[in-house]
C-alpha cells in the first residue's frame, strides 16, 4: 500500500521505523487531502518547526476527529431524507466533537509541558551538584534525552507538549532578543564588522562541513569497496580481513 510518491516513508531515510502502518496511511491520506485543498476545516498548522520529524500526534487527533465525525448519522428520524434542521444539528455535533478533541489536546499539552518543566527543574538541581560547570539548560536536555533513550519517558508522553514548544520556540526568545536594546551602545559602532564576521564564518563553516562530510563518505565507500573486492577475490572473509589489516600496517 506504500507505492505512493510520498518519499517521506522511503525506507532509505529510515524515518518510518517507529510509525505503524495505519498511521502511515493516515498521513498519506492527510497529505493528499492537503494537496487537493479539499478539507478547509482541518487544522493546517501555521507554525511548523523544522525540528519536527513527523507530527504523529497531530495526525492521530485528526484521524480521531474524522472517525467520530463519520460515525454521525445525520438522519435523526430515519426517513431517509436529511432536513435542513437535521443538517444543522449534524453540523453542530461535528463542531462540538472537533472542539472536544481539541480541548483534550490542549489539556494534554499543558500537562505534558508541566512534566517537561518538572524534568527541567530536576536538571537544574543536578546541574548545581555536578562538579563541571555545565549550563542547567543543557543538563536538562541531556536528562530528557537519557529518559527517552532508556524508556523512562515514552515519546507519546511528551509528544504533544514537545511539539508545541518546538513550534513556538521563536516566541520564547522575544524577550531575550528585545534585551538588545540595553546593549545597543555596544553593537551600533561595530555593526558592519559583526555582519562581516557572520558572513565570513558562515561561508567558512559551510565549506569545511560539506567538504568533510563528502570526503568521509567517499573514504568510507572506498573502504567498503576494497573490503568487498578482497572478500570476493580471496573467497574467505576472514582471510580478506586479515590481509586488509596487514596491508594497512605496511
Amino acid at each position: 500500500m506504500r507505492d505512493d510518491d510520498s518519499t517521506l516513508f522511503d525506507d532509505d531515510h529510515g524515518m518510518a521505523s517507529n510509525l505503524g502502518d495505519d498511521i502511515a496511511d493516515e498521513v498519506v491520506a492527510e497529505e493528499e487531502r492537503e494537496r487537493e485543498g479539499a478539507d478547509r476545516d482541518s487544522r493546517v498548522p501555521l507554525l511548523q518547526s523544522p525540528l519536527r520529524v513527523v507530527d504523529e500526534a497531530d495526525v492521530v487527533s485528526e484521524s480521531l476527529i474524522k472517525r467520530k465525525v463519520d460515525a454521525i448519522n445525520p438522519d435523526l428520524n430515519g426517513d431517509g431524507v436529511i432536513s435542513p434542521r437535521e443538517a444543522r444539528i449534524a453540523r453542530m455535533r461535528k463542531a462540538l466533537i472537533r472542539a472536544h478533541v481539541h480541548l483534550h489536546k490542549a489539556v494534554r499539552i499543558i500537562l505534558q509541558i508541566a512534566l517537561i518543566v518538572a524534568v527541567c527543574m530536576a536538571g537544574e538541581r543536578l546541574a548545581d551538584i555536578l562538579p563541571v560547570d555545565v549550563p542547567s539548560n543543557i543538563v536538562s536536555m541531556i536528562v530528557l534525552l537519557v529518559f527517552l533513550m532508556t524508556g523512562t519517558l515514552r515519546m507519546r508522553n511528551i509528544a504533544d507538549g514537545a511539539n508545541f514548544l518546538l513550534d513556538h520556540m521563536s516566541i520564547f526568545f522575544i524577550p531575550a532578543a528585545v534585551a538588545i536594546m540595553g546593549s545597543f551602545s555596544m553593537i551600533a559602532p561595530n555593526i558592519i564588522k559583526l555582519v562581516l564576521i557572520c558572513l565570513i564564518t558562515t561561508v567558512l563553516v559551510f565549506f569545511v562541513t560539506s567538504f568533510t562530510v563528502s570526503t568521509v563518505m567517499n573514504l568510507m565507500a572506498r573502504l567498503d569497496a576494497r573490503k568487498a573486492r578482497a572478500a570476493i577475490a580471496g573467497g574467505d572473509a576472514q582471510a580478506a580481513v586479515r590481509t586488509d589489516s596487514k596491508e594497512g600496517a605496511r
Partner: protein
Amino acid sequence: MLLTALHVSFGIILSIVAFEGAVWLNKHIRTPLLNPLLVAVTFIIVILTTFRIPLSDYQQGARVISFFLGPATAVLAFSIYQQITILKKHFIPVLAGCLMGSITSIVSSYLLCKAFGMDQAVTMSTLPKSVTTPIAMSISQELGGITSITVAVVIASGIMGSILAPTLTKLFHVKSPIAAGVAIGTCSHAIGTSKALEINELEGAMSGIAIGVSGLITMIIALTYHSLLG
C-alpha cells in the same frame, strides 16, 4: 493592583501580538529576511522606543515567556531522539562534519573578532553563533558574553545561511544532499533547516540532525576551553 496586573500583562500581550503579526506578514510575503522573530523584535523595540517605555517594564511581564526557555531547550532532546534512526545510518560522516564545522566556527569567530578589534565580552558572545539559540545563549552565559548580542548574531547567521545556502551549494560543487544538509544545519541551525526542507527532505532531515550534533559539540569544545583557561 490593577496597575500591576496591567504592567505584567503588557509585556506578554505585546510579545504575542507582535509575533502573531509577524507570522501573518511572513505568510503573505515570503522572504527569509522577514523571519517572524526578527520582525516581532523590531516591532517591539520600535514601540518601546517610540512611547519611551522603559525596558524593565516590558521585561517584568515578558519574564513569564522567557521562563519557558529552559523547557524549550530540553525539548531539543526530543527532536534529537526522533532522528536517532537516521543519525545511526550516517553517524561517522555527520559526526566528522559537525566536529570540523564547529571547530571552524569557534576558531574563525574568535580570530575574526580579535582581528577586528572587538572587546572580550563581544568576542565571547559571537563564539557560539552557529548553534541554535537556546544552546548558544547557555554557552554565551558560561563564557561571559552578553546574551542579547549572542541572540542577534545567531539570528543573523541563521538568516545569512538560509539565503546563501543554494548559492554556496553550487559554488562549492556539493553533490551529496547529505553533505549539503549537514553543512546548512551546522552553519545556520533552525532557520537554515527551514530552507533546506524546502529544497529536499533528506537535506532538511540531515540539517535538523546537524543542529543537535553541532550544538552539543560546540558546547563541549567551548566549555572545555573555558574550564581549562578560566
